[in-house]
């Protein structure tokens, strides 16, 4: 009887291990995708954090990361327009590609693709990418519509 219970326990443990590994293998790594369904109004001169972050887990030898930001309509009140960039791993707000939102753009959806190379400060393990920016010259604001932020390894 005791032997049968032991066999049952071992079998159950193995089953749980398989289920655990399977779900972790198929799950989308948390934090690579962000959906911002509401409007937001970051106000200030460039550059400050918009407090929205995505993350990727890098292997021991980091790959380049492609971050895409797509925003559905916005209104930029800034004279000279606004800039948008990324804070990588808590560093300074940096422009890793195009960054410009022209002055007074209403309901014009657009997207940005940014490329971050390992030499930009990527490291093995968790890496964070936080949206940042602000007015190019002044400290007036912008109104952002719903947006998505996505990070993926280039491997």
């Amino acid at each position: 009887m005791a032997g049968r219970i032991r066999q049952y326990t071992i079998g159950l443990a193995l089953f749980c291990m398989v289920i655990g590994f399977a779900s972790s293998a198929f799950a989308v790594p948390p934090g690579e995708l962000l959906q911002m369904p509401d409007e937001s109004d970051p106000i200030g001169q460039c550059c400050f954090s918009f407090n929205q972050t995505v993350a990727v887990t890098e292997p021991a030898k980091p790959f380049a990361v492609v971050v895409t930001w797509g925003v559905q309509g916005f209104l930029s009140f800034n004279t000279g327009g606004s800039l948008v960039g990324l804070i990588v791993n808590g560093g300074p707000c940096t422009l890793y590609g195009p960054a410009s939102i022209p002055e007074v753009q209403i309901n014009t959806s657009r997207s940005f693709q940014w490329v971050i190379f390992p030499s930009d400060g990527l490291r093995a393990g968790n890496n964070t990418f936080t949206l940042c920016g602000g007015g190019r010259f002044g400290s007036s604001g912008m109104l952002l519509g719903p947006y998505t932020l996505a990070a993926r390894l280039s491997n």
Partner: protein
Amino acid sequence: MKTFSNMKLWLLCSSVVWMGLLLTPTASAVQNKELLRVQHNTSFQGLCCFSFQEAVQMSEPTTLVPLIVTWSTDYQATDFFFVALSVNGGPCIFFGSGGLQPFEDAGGDADSHTFQWLILPGDGVLRPGKNTFALCGGAAFSANDTIVLGFNTLAVRTSK
């Protein structure tokens, strides 16, 4: 005689190590050729179509797979401009949308735009092995029109 054998063995081992060292940077360089980031402004003038001097590369398997090329840029343009791709040194072809609206601002403001182009095996421009995708285009109406390409990124990836 034994010393000579040892020397041969040492030479063989060191050759293997050097080959490994040589191949390692090649592998990582291939990865970077699929992605390009430009962080300066470049001015171009003229009618379509000429090269914008930016290119990425992707290696195709024997059985070709579709590729996605994405170009995201800041720009200023005095009039309407076309942008497209020259694949493997071929003609400048539109693999999707390709129009940039005029945008001028004396104060330094710029506009931005992102294009996604899909290149299918049936397009007849891809080949097994290395493929090059060079940005091309030019003004739609006048040879005097100018475009300034600002910070931009060019990326190619497979459709999987």
